[in-house]
């Protein structure tokens, strides 16, 4: 087993599993942001961006992590098309046509 791990690195060792688990646990412990809040945030980000560009709403990921520089809220948003979506909601500025 020792030789096996030496060849393939520590990635499968229980120590590295412990480290990864701790990183996830502590990120949650350190912030008051629950999974629920992150989901609400995701829905609002999706709806805000969808008003302007076309995105794959189902594949949007919103995560919170922390590194040496502090906490980071990351949104991974796959874009379908960069063409601007026509805004048709009330109150939005309509393109003027004369």
């Amino acid at each position, binding site marked *: *087993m*020792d030789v096996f*791990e030496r060849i393939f690195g*520590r990635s499968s*060792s*229980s*120590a*590295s599993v*412990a*480290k990864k*688990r*701790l*990183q996830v*646990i*502590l990120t949650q*412990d*350190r912030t008051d942001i629950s999974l629920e809040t992150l989901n609400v945030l995701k829905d609002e980000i999706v709806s805000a961006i969808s008003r302007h560009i076309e995105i794959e709403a189902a594949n949007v990921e919103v995560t919170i992590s922390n590194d*040496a520089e502090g906490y980071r809220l990351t949104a991974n948003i796959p874009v379908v098309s960069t063409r601007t979506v026509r805004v048709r909601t009330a109150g939005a500025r309509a393109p003027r046509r004369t």
Partner: protein
Amino acid sequence: MAGQVITITSGKGGVGKTTATANIGVALARRGQRVACVDADIGLRNLDVVMGLENRIVYDLVDVVEGNAKLRQALIKDKRLPELHLLPAAQTRLKSAVNEAQMQEVCGELKKEFDFVLVDSPAGIESGFKTSVAPADQVLLVVTPEVSSVRDADRVIGLIEAYEKPTPQLIINRLRPALIRRGDMLDTADVLEILAVELIGIVPEDERIISSTNKGQPVALEDHSESGAAFMRIAQRLMGEQVPFQMFAESPGWLERVSKFLRR
């Protein structure tokens, strides 16, 4: 010059706070420092037993706070090391018997006479913890390289910051080199990376701790154990000496990873 109050604490219980307090006290006294160890774990006193002074208790911390005894009367002088003293906890009282202001007053008095006042904090984050951290000029956080201990340590770091106390320095206790080499224990660099605090000592797991506690003779009283030597190095660092960290076992690349945290 006034001494300094150092509180030794942890998130999880049973990680070696009391053993660390006793041994750092012994190590400092062996280097000629005047030391008072204060057992702040009221109701669950143990520092007296670990130090082997349980038969000499007359008065305790609560007696001092309530005015039944003078501080000088309650302090037990260790016959093995003339510079080492213990202020024991009360065994039959509750944590609430001593409040923050009283703890600060007692430690403030002790600081006038001793170079180091070591406060052995109770486990957990209830009122006793806050009381024992209140007088601290410096906090040492004991952690073992295990998921539960590291998680609880992280919580304590947050609390100590919230109390506007100096960021704790870490003692990684009960490190098992063979397990680290096998990839079955978090190593020093892992723990430092996760907790992002400064390191003050690494103490390897040592069976001698059990027999030394059985006998009431802290390992740091003598020179032949690895754990005793590790506590001695912590004492030297507390005295401001630069002592290199001994790495007991690390995965490849540990030097760069650890030095990243030590350089700061």
